[in-house]
């Protein structure tokens, strides 16, 4: 299915924000599969950063040949996208105090989540290595705390440092970011006994649950069980994920 590009801008070095027409309405935490063209074969998964009346936004970082190809796509070009796929973040009316924690290129899907949260008290902790992005957008939906590893913006350090200051308020934690960060968030949520959902990444084939390649190790009664990131996830309860 062809979708027309509305914009594709480099918002900081190597990080792009791409918007395109897309009919099917997604839920926060879901993702799309994009055919990046050129000599790539498989589609690549990208989380949904925003969705507004038939227009979808994803943000991506140039890492390999697929994302490189994407970065060369121009306005009005068409791309092949399927989705929305997967099980996103669950939103609970009962929780008033929300803690959203994101790191690096894991941050974009949390914007769409924050927008959809109806709660009053939303704390958002965003961690970057250096240059921050999306801060203004997040500020519309909650109280934003920024950390950078080099101290160039907000607090110097990691999201986990910033989390400690506000963790006691939280009824639920939502997290997305690199694996070590997710692992740390999981530990914190367990220590403080706060329910926690995290979005994980794994290499994918089909993206819809048929090929069993996107295995995420989870706890099961009789030991462990490999769930599918593309269908059971990408969002899982932190307590079930085995890192």
């Amino acid at each position, binding site marked *: 299915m062809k979708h027309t590009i509305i914009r594709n801008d480099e918002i900081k070095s190597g990080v792009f924000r791409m918007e395109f027409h897309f009919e099917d309405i997604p839920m926060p935490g879901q993702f799309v599969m994009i055919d990046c063209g050129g000599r790539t074969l498989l589609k690549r998964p990208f989380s949904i950063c925003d969705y507004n009346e038939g227009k979808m936004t994803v943000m991506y970082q140039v890492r390999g040949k697929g994302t490189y190809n994407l970065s060369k796509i121009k306005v009005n070009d068409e791309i092949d996208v399927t989705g929305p796929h997967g099980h996103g973040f669950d939103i609970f009316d009962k929780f008033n105090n929300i803690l959203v924690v994101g790191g690096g290129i894991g941050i974009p899907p949390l914007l769409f989540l924050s927008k959809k949260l109806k709660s009053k008290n939303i704390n958002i902790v965003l961690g970057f290595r250096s240059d921050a992005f999306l801060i203004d957008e997040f500020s519309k939906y909650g109280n934003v705390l920024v950390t950078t590893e080099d101290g160039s913006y907000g607090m110097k350090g990691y999201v986990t440092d910033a989390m400690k200051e506000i963790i006691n308020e939280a009824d639920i934690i939502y997290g997305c970011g690199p694996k070590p960060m997710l692992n740390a968030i999981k530990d914190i949520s367990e220590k403080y006994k706060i329910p926690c959902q995290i979005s994980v990444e794994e290499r994918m084939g*089909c993206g819809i649950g048929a090929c*069993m390649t996107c295995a995420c190790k989870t706890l099961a009664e009789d030991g462990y069980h490999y769930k599918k990131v593309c269908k059971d996830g990408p969002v899982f309860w932190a307590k079930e994920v085995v890192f």
Partner: protein
Amino acid sequence: MRLKVNIGNLEFKNPVFVASGTFGFGKEYSQYVDLNKLGAIMVKGLTLNPKEGNPPPRIYETPSGILNSVGLQNPGVDGFLKDELPFLKKFDTKIIVNIAGETIEEFVTMAQKLDIDGVHALELNVSCPNVKEGGMAFGVNPNSIYEITKRVKYVTDKTVIVKLTPNVADIKIYAKAAEDGGADAVSLINTITGMVVDINSKRPIFKNIFAGLSGPAVKPIALKHVYEAKKAVSIPVIGMGGISSAEDAIEFMIVGATAVAIGTYNFINPTCTMDILEGIKKYMNENNVSDINQIINSINV
């Protein structure tokens, strides 16, 4: 226009199948493809007991191909019968159940459990490169192929297909072993053993070191194996390996495949099977072929 083909005691409405392990148990792709329009669904490989498979990563993109190391994660035969078969039974297509025993006895036991309505054929997977027990170890030994086929045929009246590995020097010997064992058909190719290394950690990407290569990259190799296999046996051959277009499918049929299966390309284009079916019809129309069986094994050498 006649698209029907026969394999064993079965008649298939058309020769476009989906390959085992790439289409799950049909459910997910049913949102993209009308399953009633497929010639057959070859379901994910089953083991006697549920199996968790290999640790991730399980897939890696290569030039025009993929390496996979799923390691047969599946719910086991009983899980399949309970949770998957009822859904599949709703469709008017043939269900081919791919089974992978760790021992000959397991093959027999599974065949017995699957001797049930709604299961049309068994595909004996003696060619999975991603498991430690059974799998390809059987497939590179003609005696094992013969023995497994014979033992399974003895306990079932279902159509029995033997799935061959391309990781051999001369496929003819293995196809013949299956035929001699009483197979109704052979299917090939399963994936080709390959590997990839992370140059930073200096470790193989896959925990099992090797993984299985599939996708368009392997098509010329698969076509050769199918051609050779067909020369060795008189039972039907089901051809697969890298098919991505109607042209590819027709090539396989010309060299001798009675039906074709599409695997990896479902990931690339979830509706490719329908495009391939339409393309075959178009080719038949343009070339005044009224019966698809006229194409099968029509190679001119």
